[in-house]
């Protein structure tokens, strides 16, 4: 299996430890363009696309394997084994925070720390848990995804035409930023929003930095606080930000919080 091709793996930077950036539902590794460059001087940096997203090998999308987050977690461990150098810190946005948690559970001790941006172990409310959503909301999301299948390629065309001049590879990535095969998007949406990883985060002893947006519909503050309470070795940082992507809309605040947390693993400033 050619991982580089399967997950469109890119390796950058220099340092004694490795940051593996894992993007969330809906986009690809280009979402790290605002945050990842900050760490290239002090870390070995690995970026990749989840299978089915961005420039990953769509033919590798096995419906059975990716019918739960486990398949993605096994992929992540393979990437860690193949590309990481020194201690490994997973930086996961949204659903990738849970993929990282599962990867940690599958290979205890392999992951030195987690940075979780907008994480949520479960999106749907239960009697004693607030995830922020009802089951019907998720069906409504699938409906919205469906509604945008038909115009999908034409919606992308003008954007591609208007893309500013950039290095070829990075242009390709930004072009494919939110483009996904409809069937794959549908299944990934289900797997993401119907998963329940509360049991997996419970008692996770690995050091974790939770980066919580102050106003996030997808991962509300209550969910971030829940995670902080159940993970004994977690650090909770509230980032003043509206929306689910603080690493895109508030990258400096995210970088500052991460610098403090990552200090034990970073190379000395050049």
């Amino acid at each position, binding site marked *: 299996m050619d991982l580089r091709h399967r997950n469109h793996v890119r390796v950058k930077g220099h340092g004694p430890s490795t940051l593996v950036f894992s993007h*969330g*539902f*809906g*986009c690809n590794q*280009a*979402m790290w*363009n605002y945050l990842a460059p900050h760490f290239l001087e002090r870390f070995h940096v690995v970026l990749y696309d989840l299978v089915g997203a961005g420039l990953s090998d769509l033919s590798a999308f096995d419906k059975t394997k990716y019918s739960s987050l486990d398949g993605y977690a096994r992929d992540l461990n393979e990437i860690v084994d193949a590309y990481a150098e020194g201690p490994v810190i997973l930086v996961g946005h*949204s659903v990738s925070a849970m993929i990282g948690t599962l990867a940690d559970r599958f290979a205890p001790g392999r992951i030195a720390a987690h940075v979780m941006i907008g994480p949520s172990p479960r999106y749907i409310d239960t009697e004693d848990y607030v995830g922020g*959503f*009802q089951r*019907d*909301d*998720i*069906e*409504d*999301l*699938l*409906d*919205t*995804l*469906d*509604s*945008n*299948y*038909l*115009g999908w390629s*034409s*919606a992308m065309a*003008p*954007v591609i035409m*208007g*893309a500013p001049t950039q290095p070829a590879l990075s242009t390709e990535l*930004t072009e494919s*930023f*939110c483009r996904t095969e409809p069937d794959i998007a549908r299944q990934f949406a289900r797997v993401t*929003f119907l998963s329940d990883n509360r049991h997996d985060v419970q008692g996770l002893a690995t050091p974790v930095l939770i980066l919580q947006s102050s106003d*996030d*519909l*997808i991962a509300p503050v209550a969910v971030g606080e829940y995670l902080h309470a159940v993970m004994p070795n977690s650090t909770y940082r509230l980032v003043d930000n*509206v*929306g*689910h*992507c603080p690493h*895109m*809309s508030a990258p400096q605040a995210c970088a500052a919080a991460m610098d403090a947390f990552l200090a034990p693993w970073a190379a000395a400033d050049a």
Partner: protein
Amino acid sequence: MRSWRRGQLPMPDSLFDSAACALAVTREDGTILRVNPRLSDWLGFSAAELQGRRFQDLLTMGGRIFYQTHLAPMLRMHGSVTEVKLDIRHCAGHKVTVLLNANQRQQPDGVVYDLALFGTTDRDKYERELLNARKLAEALLQEKTATELALQQAQAELSEAYAIAQRRALFAEQMVAIVSHDLKNPLTAIRMASDFLQRGERTAKERQLLGHIGQSSERAQRMIADLLDFTQARVGQGITIKAVPLDLHNVIQHAVDELRVAFPAATLVHHAEGLGQACLDADRVQQIIGNLVANSVAYGDLLQPITVTSRLGDNACAVAVHNHGPAIPESLLAGLFEPMTRGTDQGSDVRSVGLGLYIVRELARVHGGDVAVSSCAMAGTTFTVMF
């Protein structure tokens, strides 16, 4: 609204207010700064009610998630989105379906987004119909694929079962061949011993018992011969013959004489018709007559004679065996010459393993001929072998 003279372009403000689509300007976080009357009109909220709210909060829940996971990152990455279909909640609660185009614009005090929304309710209905048709087609395709897969599996299982059955049948036939062959020697020893005993002085009772031994071992030998021929025909190289020119009437007469001894309860009559030569295997012709007569003895009316006819003509010759008695049931006729077929399940001691007629047909065929049967209650039953 301001007025303007003919030929003069409208002022930007009035263009915004009177545009044929809904327009809005928001901050980067979605907070609405300004809307045109058409948006107020479509959504049932006044401009004052809309200003200060976030655009994404007007959407249905699915749309809000989509906004967070797709639209907001795309706007930040590309500075624009086009033709995104969203459902907005009207103040009365129903959905208004729109297509959204959005563009990023740099202002001295920060970034704003210009939004243009087009009502698309009717097209949305049409697109949903297309989508449903596609889903239906996909479901049907999936069903078809699943059915084909199941069929393939069933076929594979069937041919596997068939192969197993064939191996078993071959094994059984080989077993029959081995056992039949091995039974020949002890049977020959029994016959030789009973022949030897018959030569001396015997009481009437002893003579009767020795007769039983002789007849029974002859019957056993015929059955073994049938079994060996059967296995030869089925799993071996086929039955072989040595055809030589012979006097058919003479051969049949000789055979009938022998059969009178073997079946003392029956009355056997021989008819010879026509003149000429035949080229046949004499032993095999005797076997054919033997099997057919044994059949007649088993199923025919023994109070009336069994007639064996040998017939010679210019180009062909035939032998026939006729008996009176009940007709062969219609249901049995089709499979009469297949192995293991019996006329009835009667427990008579004349019954054999059911190979007699099968071997008659094989022997007829190996001579280049065939066998036919006619049977009715009035005329009785006739088997005719044509060479």
